[in-house]
């Protein structure tokens, strides 16, 4: 297993700025399935502190990802301090769209850490390979076992308990590998109760219950080709959202794909990989657990996507390239039904997504030339077509009379970067330009209640494309003991889409205070920077530090919402024989650049101290690791800038976990 993970996981500490393609080696072509041609930013699903992390916790350890949290479950990942509309989030290149109008089901909530091998994060237009984006892309890579492993059958089992919210989890995965057949299966259960904040007060409605299972079967059709079918099933039940007036009763997703991969030993084309996929998501919010609500309301949502992704990798001498074609069709439906106090009376019904179809197709390319051993140029671009159709467009006409029922958009993107290695220094410079289409909610949403600023949001079908111009740079310095990397990026965004108060209409949801319409600001700017330091004090004593800062401004110089204040993370790791000790401190400074018009208030600084210890041992023939640790050891009472309703975060949490590999 260990050898396998070495082959599979190419660890990288920070964000690598290049779209580099690892050379396809001859020995790997024999063992198909091991080949990871798009080896850019791979991060193992494990954070520094904890080995049994949720996908959210894992992503949180990346320095350009932050989160909007509405509870303990299904955090919305923000890439470069931009919300999910601005990034493309895919699972193995497959597009999936959440079925909740309130973004309570980001794609990351439909996978589990034990069916993923790594997460590929690309910043800005470099992420346009999978589709039009502004912020970048997050691609969740599924676990796939290579053909012909020496160990035919194997797997891992992990169990654990977290004391704060009484979370019990059981994760298991199994593989079976022969020379021409591979099967991968995984199953995961998590069940958690309400958590307690730093004042030891129970945060009601913060429980969750999740089941995730996956299965992958691959068959080698020839020495250089293979077919693979994959399925993920995910079910979340009884998930509380303390920051919302309602909870999740049930959400289910089925994510399926069939792919064909062909390798070529000679010629320019090295790999051709094609996949067709289908996924369906259903999401039912429920407020029967909240008797204090004035109105009983049903909010079901459905999202169905069919798609195709096909890519080839080219390589000749110092030139390598990846060309990708993407196409998908998505139908998003969301309903609201309100019940009057007198249930015998007529209910009140409306669509919050009036059967909106999105079709998208794009051709994307990424090229790189190694000019010399020390420098490299990357150049890429894509052209996408985005089509929307609103079946019940009369809903949209209420606020936007005469808006078109169908809308076509062209979404171009270009990016370029230059990398230079000078002795101990790595320098890179890049720039990009790209369009994105408004999301379903931004264009066609209808009275979507946002409990952060407590407004009902109305989409505008006539919104212009958001156009982003970006620049980025990074400098790295490395010695045997020390590595320092500094990164900056700057986005200048035209037609920045955001909700503004409408003088028209009145709220529909009784909690809301008004109606906001999605409009385009003429411009907005965003600046992100991060410094990573890694220092090997002794052979078995490592220190790591990360400092990030971001600033976002709207067209009038006001603050953009959900921009992370100055934040830091520092950790120390000590290894002695089979024992590992870690301690870390992380926190945010006060969010002084908050945005009252978007519902933000001043959030104070906080710091969290964590501690953990792990011990590796053998259970007979089985390699095992036991870990025990505590998060928020000082039981600090805090909430972050992106916590909805300033819901307090978890207080002291003692966690234990045991992992057995076989």
């Amino acid at each position, binding site marked *: 297993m260990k050898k396998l993970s070495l082959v599979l996981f190419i660890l990288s500490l920070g964000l690598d700025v290049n779209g580099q393609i690892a050379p396809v080696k001859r020995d790997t072509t024999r063992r198909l399935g091991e080949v990871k041609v798009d080896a850019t930013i791979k991060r193992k699903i494990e954070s520094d502190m904890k080995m049994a992390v949720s996908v959210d916790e894992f992503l949180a350890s990346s320095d350009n990802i932050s989160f909007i949290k509405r509870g303990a479950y299904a955090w919305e990942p923000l890439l470069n301090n931009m919300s999910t509309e601005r990034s493309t989030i895919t699972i193995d290149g497959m597009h999936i769209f959440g079925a909740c109008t309130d973004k309570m089901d980001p794609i990351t909530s439909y996978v589990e850490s034990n069916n993923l091998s790594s997460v590929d994060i690309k910043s800005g237009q470099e992420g346009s390979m999978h589709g039009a984006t502004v912020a970048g892309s997050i691609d969740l890579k599924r676990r796939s076992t290579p053909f012909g492993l020496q160990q035919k059958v194997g797997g891992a089992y992990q169990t654990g308990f977290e004391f704060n919210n009484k979370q019990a989890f059981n994760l298991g995965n199994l593989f079976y590998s022969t020379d021409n057949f591979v099967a991968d299966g995984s199953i995961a259960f998590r069940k958690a109760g309400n958590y307690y904040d730093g004042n030891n007060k129970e945060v009601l409605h913060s429980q969750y219950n999740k089941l995730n299972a996956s299965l992958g079967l691959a068959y080698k059709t020839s020495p250089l080709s293979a077919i693979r079918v994959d399925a993920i099933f995910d079910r979340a039940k009884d998930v509380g959202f303390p920051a919302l007036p309602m909870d999740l009763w049930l959400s289910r997703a089925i994510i399926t794909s069939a792919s064909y991969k062909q390798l070529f030993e000679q010629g320019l084309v090295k790999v051709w990989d094609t996949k067709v996929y289908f996924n369906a998501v259903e999401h039912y919010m429920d407020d029967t657990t909240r008797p204090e609500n004035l109105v009983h309301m049903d909010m079901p949502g459905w999202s169905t996507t069919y798609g195709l992704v096909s890519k080839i990798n080219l390589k000749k001498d110092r030139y390598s390239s990846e060309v990708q074609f993407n196409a998908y069709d998505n139908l998003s439906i969301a309903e609201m039904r309100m019940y009057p106090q007198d249930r015998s009376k007529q209910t009140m019904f409306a669509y919050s997504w009036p059967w909106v179809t999105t079709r998208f197709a794009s051709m994307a390319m990424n090229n790189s030339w190694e000019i010399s051993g020390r420098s490299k140029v990357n150049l890429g671009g894509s052209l996408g077509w985005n089509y929307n159709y609103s079946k019940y467009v009369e809903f949209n006409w209420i606020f936007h009379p005469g808006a078109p029922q169908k809308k076509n958009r062209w979404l171009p993107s270009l990016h370029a970067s230059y990398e230079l290695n000078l002795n101990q220094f790595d320098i890179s410079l890049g720039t990009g330009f790209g369009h994105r289409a408004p999301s379903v909610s931004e264009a066609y949403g209808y009275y979507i209640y946002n409990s952060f600023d407590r407004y009902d949001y109305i989409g505008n079908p006539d919104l212009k494309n958001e156009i982003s111009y970006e620049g980025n740079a990074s400098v790295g310095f490395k010695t045997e003991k020390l590595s320092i990397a500094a990164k900056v990026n700057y986005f200048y965004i035209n037609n920045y889409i955001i909700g503004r108060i409408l003088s028209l209409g009145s709220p*529909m949801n*009784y909690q809301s205070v008004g109606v906001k319409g999605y409009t385009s600001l003429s411009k907005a700017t965003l600046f992100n920077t991060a410094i990573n330091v890694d220092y090997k004090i002794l052979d078995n004593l490592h220190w790591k530090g990360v400092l990030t800062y971001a600033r976002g401004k709207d067209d009038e110089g006001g603050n953009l919402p959900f921009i992370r204040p100055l934040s830091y993370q520092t950790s120390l790791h000590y290894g002695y024989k089979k024992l590992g000790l870690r301690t870390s401190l992380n926190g945010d400074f006060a969010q002084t650049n908050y945005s009252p018009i978007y519902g933000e208030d001043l959030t104070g600084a906080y710091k969290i101290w964590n501690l953990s210890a792990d011990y590796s041992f053998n259970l007979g023939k089985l390699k095992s690791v036991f870990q025990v640790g505590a998060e928020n050891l000082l039981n600090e009472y805090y909430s972050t800038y992106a916590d909805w309703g300033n819901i307090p975060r978890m207080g002291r949490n003692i966690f234990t976990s045991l992992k057995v590999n076989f």
Partner: protein
Amino acid sequence: MKVSILVKTIVFYAALACVFFGSCTKGKTNYEAERGDVIEENTEFKEVSNAVTANYTVSIEALNGVLYRGYNDIRVRIKNTQTNTPVEVSDLTFLPIRTTVIGEKSSCPNRYNFDYKSADKYFSGYTVFTSESDAVGSWALYINFTVGNQSFSLIKEVSVRQQPNKNLNMTTFTGLDDEQYVIALIAPQKPNVAENKLVAGIYKLNRALDPSAEGPADQLQFSYSQVERYTLKLDPRMPEPSMGNHSSPNNRDLLQDTDGLYHGVVNYTMTGNWTLNFILLNPVGKVIRGTEVPKDFTPGVEGRKSELHLDILF
């Protein structure tokens, strides 16, 4: 051993997948049916009643073959009873009269001289019945028509029923000018969660009926007239307490068009109970009836209605 576990897992998930593909947990709302449940849309004219006079069969038609309290589009066809072919009729008058048990007679807003639609060979008009047929009074239609030089007349008792569709509701009231008014909704019959063209007829009871005039029909035909150049200000709201006085944007007040009726726009943001709050202004902008309603969003409080309003439901 482990392989068999794997096989079981495969079967398990294949079965799960089948269940999933088979159906969603909760069915999607059939939106077309959703509206149809509440409102039956009547688009077809059917015979309400017929009467035979001399050699002619007079057939009275209305939507769904029923006369309702409120606004009714009415067609009259006259055929030769023997040959069953349309007859050349030069003129037709139509007057509904309600007679109470104590013998009082009254009429209602109505087109007296029906228009002839030569293409389809029928006479067209409308009547706004101000009450239903009940134990207190009954409605009869007084119809006169001319074939060649000969005049014919008939009286046909008809039944006027309660309008089940609240979107075709009506109201009668006394204005601040002491005049009696009738406002009747004409369209939309079946509203959508959308922009809806709202059409209403506004009528006034004429005073000074000369009691010494000859037949009751002669004076009753003038009992109501359409009001001219008024304005009907509109503020639609959902009265349900939980909706907190919710309203909609982009509505337009009703103004008189060339057809004499009043046209405006109402937006319904969701299905359910709505109240159309009105303020009726005369041509010089003086309030005849109606009050401004609060515009605040007040969750938990039932919306206050204008003195002049109509409740609708869809």
